[in-house]
């Protein structure tokens, strides 16, 4: 069972559907898990790849995350958030775990110069072309430059707010505020209910 592109491009519309699927996964339904995979493996892999940078490690972490989704699906509580948010929260945390230690972060800097050319970079981001991605991009563009930069470094870059402050040469209190204000603006721009 595959999820049509139309549905993945409209996450609001697919929200209930995904929640139901994950509830079925919690009862051991492997077909439901395959449908969850087909909808969320792209965002999971894309996000982790963005944070971790190294394609081999990204694949490894993605596999761990997707397996964790299968293993711990019973902990998903639709009252506390959507299935997509639950999965992407796990994915982001695992990616950050992977890069946050000092040596891993240093190695990542080196890898950015040393990893051999990678053909998957040439593969077009199919899902990124979707309408939703377009909207996210527009909303990102609507942030102030300092807000956008702080959020992308923290979320896509996997840096702690302290590291973001150091990189940008900005006081910590300023960075905290930028991230929060930027997220509020993003949330309102995307019309995220909460």
């Amino acid at each position, binding site marked *: 069972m595959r999820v049509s592109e139309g549905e993945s491009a409209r996450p609001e519309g697919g929200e209930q559907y995904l929640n139901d699927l994950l509830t079925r996964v919690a009862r051991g339904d*492997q077909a439901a898990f395959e449908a969850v995979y087909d909808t969320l493996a792209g965002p999971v892999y894309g996000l982790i790849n963005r944070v971790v940078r190294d394609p081999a490690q990204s694949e490894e972490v993605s596999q761990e995350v997707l397996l964790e989704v299968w*293993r711990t699906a019973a902990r998903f509580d639709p009252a506390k958030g959507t299935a997509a948010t639950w999965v992407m929260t796990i994915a982001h945390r695992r990616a950050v775990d992977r890069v946050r230690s000092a040596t891993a972060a240093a190695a990542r800097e080196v890898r950015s*110069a040393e990893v051999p050319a990678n053909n998957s970079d040439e593969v077009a981001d199919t899902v990124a072309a979707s309408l939703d991605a377009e909207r996210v991009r527009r909303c990102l563009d609507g942030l102030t430059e300092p807000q956008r930069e702080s959020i992308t470094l923290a979320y896509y870059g996997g840096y*702690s707010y302290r590291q973001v402050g150091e990189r940008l040469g900005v006081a910590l209190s300023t*960075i905290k505020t930028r991230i929060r204000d930027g997220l509020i603006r993003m949330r309102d721009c995307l019309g995220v209910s909460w």
Partner: protein
Amino acid sequence: MALRQDLHSLAGPYALDALDSGAEQDRFERHLNRCQNCISEVRGFRKTAARLSMAAARQPPPEMRDRVMAAVARTRQVPAGDDAARHARPAARLRPLPRLAMVGGALAVLAAVVLAIALVNTQHQLNQANHQLSQAQAQLHAITAVQTATDAKVINKRTSVGGIVSVTSSASKRQMVLRTAGLPPLAAGKVYQLWLIGHLPNKIRSEGLLAPAHNGRTGPVLISGVLAGDTFGVTIEPAGGTIQPTVTPIVGIPLPS
């Protein structure tokens, strides 16, 4: 009250997994237990962040699906309400990927040195006059912007004289960021010169000289004004550089457009 305000502003970094230490996280989570507003704010932020991740989606390697499904078939699920395993690692380790083994301790040590040098360099810039400071920051911002651009592509290539040239380019920003590692040191009186090479032979633009390497590395160097179809190239020229390349480039990287 001031302290509370301060804690509250951590909601953003917390939702993005951007707190520094476990201690800071614990402190905020204790606050969360008493602050219903914070809980719903964090929920909204997490949901917003999930949308950001949708925009970063990319096709995983096709063989990953089979590997995950095979692992699923042999992995037992955690029953509802099992808190003990909440922070546990996945039970079944997936087959490790061979290349990881090679990224070893030596690399990490080297990396630490490189980072230290990068930090010293940054500090040096910060110590300069104010307008230089803002210039350096603008440069850093621009470099970050290219590297976090949604259409950023990374291409790494070995040069004909050894060493690796890494180019991160963004077609939408018409900019690229260059780093190099392990380019051989040149004899006195020689320099590495950077070029953007367009379609026609007379469309070659010099992008300046490569600064001397620290620990075998250079960059990041921001290069702007990249045109569709440009190739980035490096040549070895006499000190001071030349107006047009006089020798065959040691590396040529067609930039995605």
